[in-house]
């Protein structure tokens, strides 16, 4: 059978992919520019087919705590929102990380700070990869650059979340959420049965059976020695993830003398900038982090021995550039180029910035 190609928005692809990857529940609250996720699910009514629950919560805070509650019973659950709403979810995200629950959060970023703008932005990089909520924790962060990746990363994020008992986040932006592209949706995967969940998640609170200890989903521990060990356990887990789950893509990097580093929609625009620059005889390549955490530190460090300089192209005032500088550790010049307020740069603007800042 030939592949079924559809045309849809990135937000719609998230909804379809969630149903198809055997998701048990979605809990969300409307906010631009991601409302199509909830709207699409409500239109499809997956509870009539796969049995997936969909609920419009009273707030983003309630939604993330519904995710926490559901994830604590081993179910495959997600929420989506956009920047101001994701700020509201940070308490719950920290609890998910502390209680080691697998869950998926989708952030279709808009500009900030505050109520900001409904136009696209990538200004939640820090919030996503440096914490956001309180305490020492990490989220597995995937940055899609196409509608296809919006669809593909839902299943991937859940696989990683359950593999490591850790919340995962898809960090998209208003461009990826709103633009329409062709997409091949993932094949239907049945929801796990309760028996399969109990086997896969022996830690889940599903009702205590006589043959095991009670399961308690909590992030609380008042004994400092025990709490330090819990934190050390988390840090060991994060190290394992850093060693095994780094994902990135290279574009025309083999002979590159200059390097763009960009994620999400910025990487799409940089791809065009690479082509236009090369037509002018400038040997530039693009490294696109797919996982923002774990960050492709080693891959970027390697290019510090090859290229003359790097430009971090982000729709913000300079966030990922800090991680690139840490990676190259002063070996080459690393500058930042961004636009703010919801304005998206053109490929030509990026080339001009490259010439002005790093050549």
């Amino acid at each position: 059978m030939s592949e079924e190609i559809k045309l849809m928005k990135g937000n719609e692809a998230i909804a379809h992919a969630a149903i198809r990857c055997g998701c048990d529940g979605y809990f969300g609250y409307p906010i631009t520019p991601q409302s199509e996720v909830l709207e699409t699910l409500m239109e499809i009514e997956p509870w009539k087919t796969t049995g997936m629950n969909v609920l419009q919560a009273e707030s983003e805070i309630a939604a993330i705590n519904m995710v926490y509650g559901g994830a604590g019973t081993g179910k495959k659950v997600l929420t989506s929102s956009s920047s101001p709403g994701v700020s509201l979810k940070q308490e719950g995200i920290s609890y998910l990380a502390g209680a080691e629950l697998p869950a998926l959060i989708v952030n279709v970023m808009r500009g900030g700070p505050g109520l900001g703008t409904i136009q696209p932005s990538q200004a939640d990089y820090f919030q996503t990869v440096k914490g956001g909520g309180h305490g020492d924790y990490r989220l597995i962060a995937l940055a899609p650059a196409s509608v296809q990746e919006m669809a593909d990363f839902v299943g991937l994020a859940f696989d990683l979340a359950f593999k490591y008992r850790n919340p995962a986040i898809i960090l998209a932006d208003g461009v990826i959420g709103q633009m329409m592209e062709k997409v091949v949706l993932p094949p239907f995967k049945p929801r796990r049965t309760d028996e399969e969940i109990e086997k896969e998640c022996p830690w889940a609170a599903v009702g205590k059976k006589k043959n095991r200890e009670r399961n308690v989903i909590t992030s609380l521990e008042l004994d400092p020695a025990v709490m330090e060990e819990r934190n050390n356990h988390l840090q060991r887990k994060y190290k394992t993830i850093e060693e095994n789950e780094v994902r990135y893509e290279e574009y025309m990097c083999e002979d590159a003398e200059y390097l763009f580093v960009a994620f999400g929609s910025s990487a799409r625009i940089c791809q065009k900038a690479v082509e236009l620059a090369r037509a002018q005889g400038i040997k530039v390549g693009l490294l696109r982090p797919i996982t923002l955490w774990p960050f492709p530190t080693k891959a970027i460090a390697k290019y510090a021995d090859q290229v003359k300089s790097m430009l971090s192209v982000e729709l913000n005032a300079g966030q990922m550039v800090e991680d690139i500088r840490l990676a190259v550790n002063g070996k080459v010049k690393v500058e930042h180029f961004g636009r703010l307020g919801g304005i998206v740069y053109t490929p030509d603007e990026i080339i001009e910035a490259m010439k002005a800042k790093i050549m």
Partner: protein
Amino acid sequence: MTIEDIIKPENLVYKKPDIMNDRPMHYCPGCSHGVVHKLIAEVLEEMGVVEDTIGITPVGCAVFAYNYLDIDWEEAAHGRAPAMAVAIKRLRPNKLVFTYQGDGDLAAIGTAETIHACNRGDSITIIFINNGIYGMTGGQMAPTTLEGMKTATCPYGRNTKLNGYPLKITNLLKELDGTCYVTRQSVHTAAAVRKAKKAIRKAFENNLNQKGVSVVEIVSTCNSGWKLTPEKANEWMEQNMFPAYPLGDLKDTTGDSQTK
């Protein structure tokens, strides 16, 4: 000689519920929490639903309830237990899903989650401990603190001009279409304990029979926060809390009303 040798089965008239762990409680002497915990344990065992129960603990004195009852638990962020309970009930409709919350948790920081869960009508049970004070953080003013009552953050007594009025949230919840059973009980006398147990049983039965939200408020003592002996605290509760929070069923759409 073991306890089984001393007490012959035919003479056994009372025993600790099996799911109450042998762990010393952190609650202060005279506190109502221990009695309510025991009632929940007894009801779950009598109904035979221990293996199908998921409890949600709050932030507050009862945060460690999961140490005392041998069932599966999830520990909520402050005030968020009802949102979690709704999701769990949707995802696992055949489970008995209940929250156990204090007045600060349920009626201050978690008001939105409480109201919307009660309005949505999923069959969850809310056990609401109302002692008019924040116990765990050291006796600060709660939404349910009585007018004139002294706490660490209203040391001269609750002044309604400064602090607003005591929030009778259970009265609000009974107005919502999603609640099927709303009752206010206490556990300060043997008779009151028996009535409270019946209320909890009814609320848990509603839970499994998918009737809607059941709210069991237990007007409770906080000896440490109130700075009263257990006996005096009971007297003070009868004289001051009960007039503001009168006991009895506020709503019952499921059939026979138990008490007035």
